[in-house]
């Protein structure tokens, strides 16, 4: 019977092309607008950490004094850490993989002819564990050796694109180039394919959806000797005399993030216990002089929500687009009624010839479903145009249609149209057939 209903539906759609087109467009516009906003939302809500999400933890410390009640975010923690604390966490006697991160901008000198030095490159100081914790895929070479985290050496890990820009080739492992002041030489330890997770959860202090990935990774052990100023947020809670890089290192300014990998509950408990002890110890040294000195760890999912990666605008637009879909569907109900009313006589004849109410209902619901399917297809087309517009407007590369959205859009439009079709289809199958059979 289903194929028979499909055949009838298709025939009926062709018979009333204008009305059918209006219904399809009404559904398509609603689906297109809502899928655009939902896709964008979904891209923002994406957790790129995957199954490492509940293992990686950002560390926070309420490291402020003056007997203040709260500082930083709503829960009384600043997002970032002081250098003193990062140094202590890094040197703590714990076996968990961990890494500090801060961003710098650097000049890089290309070795290709006729290419001028550029300072547009971002770099980050990290420890060796960064690469395994954040799943950086190497094309050539690998991270610097473990000893470099203790005994600083001028080694770096660079991206494939940067390797090509400097050397004109992808495999540059073992080669050296000039960075920072344009004179100091650094040796390439590894080249990675591309590392730009969206959102850039590993360092949210420098933008959530950067177009460019991190270019250069340099050993954190070099920080004190290189004296490279950070490129990003620096916040403080008290006035401090800071006149050079060495002053920042000693200050209470927060400007770095620290990640540690805790694979199970026991590890988490152990780390929390460690933070408690650390806070106590620092308090005895006169730091953390606030009303509630404490530390905290947050896994990736929590960290993304905490940093409000999804903007309020985005939520509002999703809601508005769903309301728009609702209006489109109310519209479709009216148009479907108009379309089906013309078929009352036919439905009466079919009833007289032995069709049950259920069969008539199914026949019209199949037709609505078919309209919904076409509406969904056109809606997907509109959504891809909409997403293009959204990418242009917001200047990002995220939010593209993928397979799950494709299926989601079709399901949504089918569901929406079937809901829409119930009233008109009931109207047709419940009407008394005999009145449509008389001559007038």
């Amino acid at each position, binding site marked *: 019977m289903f194929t028979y209903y499909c055949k009838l539906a298709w025939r009926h759609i062709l018979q009333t092309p204008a009305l059918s087109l209006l219904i399809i467009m009404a559904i398509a516009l609603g689906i297109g607008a809502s899928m655009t906003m939902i896709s964008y939302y979904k891209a923002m809500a994406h957790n790129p950490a995957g199954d490492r999400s509940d293992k990686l933890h950002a560390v926070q410390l309420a490291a402020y004094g003056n007997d203040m009640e709260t500082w930083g975010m709503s829960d009384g923690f600043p997002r970032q850490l002081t250098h003193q604390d990062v140094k202590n966490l890094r040197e703590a006697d714990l076996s968990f993989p961990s890494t500090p991160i801060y961003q710098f901008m650097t000049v890089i000198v290309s070795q290709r002819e006729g290419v001028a030095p550029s300072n547009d490159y971002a770099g980050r100081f990290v420890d060796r564990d960064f690469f395994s914790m954040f799943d950086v895929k190497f094309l050539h070479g690998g991270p610097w050796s473990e000893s470099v985290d203790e005994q600083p050496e001028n080694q770096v890990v660079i991206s494939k694109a940067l390797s090509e820009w400097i050397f004109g080739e992808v495999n540059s492992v073992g080669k050296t180039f000039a960075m920072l002041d344009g004179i100091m030489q650094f040796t390439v330890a590894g080249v990675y394919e591309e590392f730009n997770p969206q959102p850039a959860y590993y360092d949210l202090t420098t933008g959530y959806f950067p177009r460019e990935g991190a270019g250069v990774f340099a050993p954190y052990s070099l920080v004190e000797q290189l004296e490279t100023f950070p490129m990003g947020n620096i916040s403080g809670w008290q006035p401090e005399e800071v*006149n050079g890089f060495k002053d920042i290192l000693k200050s209470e300014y927060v400007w770095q993030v620290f990640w540690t990998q805790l694979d199970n509950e026991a590890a988490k408990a152990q780390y929390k216990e460690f933070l408690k002890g650390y806070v106590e110890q620092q308090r005895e040294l006169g730091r953390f002089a606030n009303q509630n000195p404490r530390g905290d760890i947050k896994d990736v999912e929590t960290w993304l929500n905490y940093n409000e990666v999804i903007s309020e605008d985005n939520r509002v637009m999703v809601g508005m687009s769903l309301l728009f879909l609702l209006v489109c569907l*109310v519209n479709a109900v009216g148009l479907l009624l108009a379309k089906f009313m013309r078929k009352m006589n036919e439905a009466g004849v079919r009833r007289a010839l032995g069709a049950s109410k259920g069969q008539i209902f199914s026949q019209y619901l199949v037709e609505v479903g078919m309209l919904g399917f076409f509406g969904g297809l056109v809606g997907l087309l509109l959504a891809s145009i909409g997403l293009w517009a959204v990418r242009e407007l917001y200047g990002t590369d995220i939010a593209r249609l993928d397979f799950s959205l494709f299926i989601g859009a079709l399901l949504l439009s089918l569901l929406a149209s079937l809901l829409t079709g119930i009233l008109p289809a009931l109207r047709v199958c419940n009407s008394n057939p005999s009145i449509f059979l008389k001559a007038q």
Partner: protein
Amino acid sequence: MAFGPIFRSTLRNPTGALLIAIQIALTLAIASNMFYMVNERVEKMSRDTGVVNEEVIAARVFYFGKAVDKAAQADIDRKTLLEIPGVKSVSYSNSMPLGGNNNTSSLCFEQEGDEDSCPHSPSYYRSDVNFHETLGLDLVEGRWLNDSDNVTTDAISIAETRTMMLSEVLAKLYFPEESALGKQLYLGGRELTIVGVYRQLLRPGARATEADHTILTAERRTSGYLAIRVDQDRIEQVKEKLEATMVGLNDQRVITEIETMDEMAADAYRRDKAMVVLLLSVVALLLLVTALGVAGLVSFTVANRKKQIGTRRALGASKRDILAYFISENFAITALALIVGSGMAYALNQYLLQTYELARLELVYVFVAAASLLFISQFATLLPALKASKVSPAIATRTV
């Protein structure tokens, strides 16, 4: 034409009318809130920066060589740039209105201030003494910062600064009854004396609220943002030559983000503009869909009532009467829907208020949206109603 019979006839078969009403009420609820949000953003984007936008270029200057006498270099930069035809003023600052690198600190009445004595957290500019002239700020009272206020050089904190200027709004907030001149306030724990008040200067970034809470301090700035004021008709030429000129003077630095104030504003308000474009697109589509829906449903009603219309015509109704019949029927339905829709608009706004930090809907937006919907709905009725008025009276006597 009396409304009585229209209502009765509509009430007997209410589905079509009900659908029109639901659609219009929903559209009003959504559209008025959207209009409101759009207007909020447009107002934000068109705020006065306090700067002579059309004459100002900014660029970021970044040194990489370590052995550079930046102070001497800044003097050379200034001298050289001022020789370029059209350049009127040159200044270094840590940040620019609508630009990056925002320094914010709480401004307190007391040194060890609690929350009550620190009511606001303005952004403060750390610029050389030419900054006000380069941006074209207006003095309200007191004096501009000069060489006597110029203490530190590119330091990270403002440890040695002693004086500051406030925006007019900020001065009024702290000293509503008297002049702020000569008063002392604590900026991040440091005591500063107010020597002047300027009319307006926006913060860096694109904050929606308290955007005009700003402070000016002076220092011997030599890097960060370079701001240049140029005759409007020369601005493009200067912009093009800027990087080459600056790197030509010293190649141990890089010049990036060379932008006019208008371009900086476009960057800063990118999200707001995106929101406006998206909201307006949805509103436009919404109104289009509603118009088509109304037209569709009215045609449907006309088709259903063909016989009735024919009978009315046969009984002496003129074409005008039939037209008036459908127009007034639509008017009644739309008006009722708009009343219900206003309530829904308010309810939706309440929800938005609670869930997001949106402001309360002003009545004027509901009126504007309602008026446009009434117009659209009546207009959408016109075509099918005209068709109805052309129904021949002869149809009444035909059987099939």
